[in-house]
């Protein structure tokens, strides 16, 4: 008796059920594949953006105590009074505007929402959450400065010339 009742409740594995499962499964796999393909399609594989490494110029072009903005690369090249170099990002850490060097006040100031940084890139005031990052800077044998924006370095890293 108990076995009969169990059999009544159990779904018999019919041909119709098999074909439905097969069809549904095929549609499901195709739909999943479609979603994955579309998601991958949306993410570009090749970017034609400016390269992260660039030549910043000759050492002689930068007097000591100068802060020079490379507009195209959005990087400040700073030569300290002591003569060493470092590269500070000009992209404000708040919402990505380009900050300017204000020589009268001696600060790097963002025009969008008023964040201020000192010439080491340290956050002084404003809504920016972090100081400006510093990038790797190197000197080649023809006294050209090279900056790599792909490599963020600590503020102890300086380039003595």
């Amino acid at each position, binding site marked *: 008796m108990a076995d009969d009742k169990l059999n009544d409740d159990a779904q018999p594995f019919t041909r119709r059920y098999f074909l439905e499962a097969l069809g549904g499964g095929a549609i499901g796999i195709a739909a999943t594949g479609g979603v994955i393909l579309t998601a991958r399609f*949306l*993410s*570009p594989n090749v*970017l*034609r*953006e*400016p390269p992260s490494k660039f030549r910043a110029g000759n050492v002689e072009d930068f007097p000591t105590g100068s802060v020079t903005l490379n507009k195209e690369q959005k990087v400040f090249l700073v030569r300290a009074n002591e003569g060493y170099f470092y590269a500070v990002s000009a992209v404000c850490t*708040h*919402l*990505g*505007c380009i900050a300017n060097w204000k020589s009268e006040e001696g600060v790097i100031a963002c025009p*969008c929402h008023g964040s201020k940084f000192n010439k080491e890139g340290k956050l002084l005031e404003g809504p920016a959450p972090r100081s400006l990052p510093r990038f790797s800077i190197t000197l080649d044998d023809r006294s050209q400065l090279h900056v790599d924006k792909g490599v963020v370095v600590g503020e102890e890293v300086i380039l003595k010339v």
Partner: protein
Amino acid sequence: MIKRMFERLFQSQVWRSMFRHGLPESNRTRAETVFYNFFLHVHPTKVRKRSIRFTYTWGLGGLSLGLFIVLTATGALLMLYYRPSVPQAYWDMKDLQFVVSSGQYLRNMHRWAAHAMVAVVFLHMLRVFYTGSYRSPKEFNWVIGVFLLVMTILLSYTGYLLPWDQLSFWGISVGTNMVRAVPFGMGETISFLLLGGNVVGENALIRFYVLHCFIVPVAAVILMGIHFWRVRKDGGV
């Protein structure tokens, strides 16, 4: 004479193939006029007098739709002269202003209607809130309305980049940097997909163009269809 002309028109096969019911002279034909017309069929056959009082709704939903239609028409015309690529976008916009006949008029109409739509949609939301029209059985329609507000804002925002001037560029730079603040590492991914890269450039321009002219409007039209249908089923106009 004129009456006879109209009678002949109403009896002609062309007329009777378009309007398959008599003139709205009885309750039955009046109801049929609504049922058998594509543009009217979502209306209820009867509405409460109270709910069609102008000062109840202020016609704000209808105004939003009207503005959307104005924006679609002017937008489609603007598309004929605008090319979404970095060397051309800004100059095409300037050509629309100074070279194309009525271009300035169409562009301004598109811009003002866009501003007005954001305001009117928001006022519509306030009206619905103050008349308590979000309550059962209309809760879900309120939710659809919230999505429609989001669509309106997305349309405004994606259109913001298209003139490709300084305001556009920094507006989108700031906005997509805000997106980067989304937690769990999702922000970077969403921002990258929105811009099609790491900077506001060619990929970003074409993505915002496609979103602005096709993807978001289609989503908005679908949501609007459901929104209006539910308004009518719940006894509104």
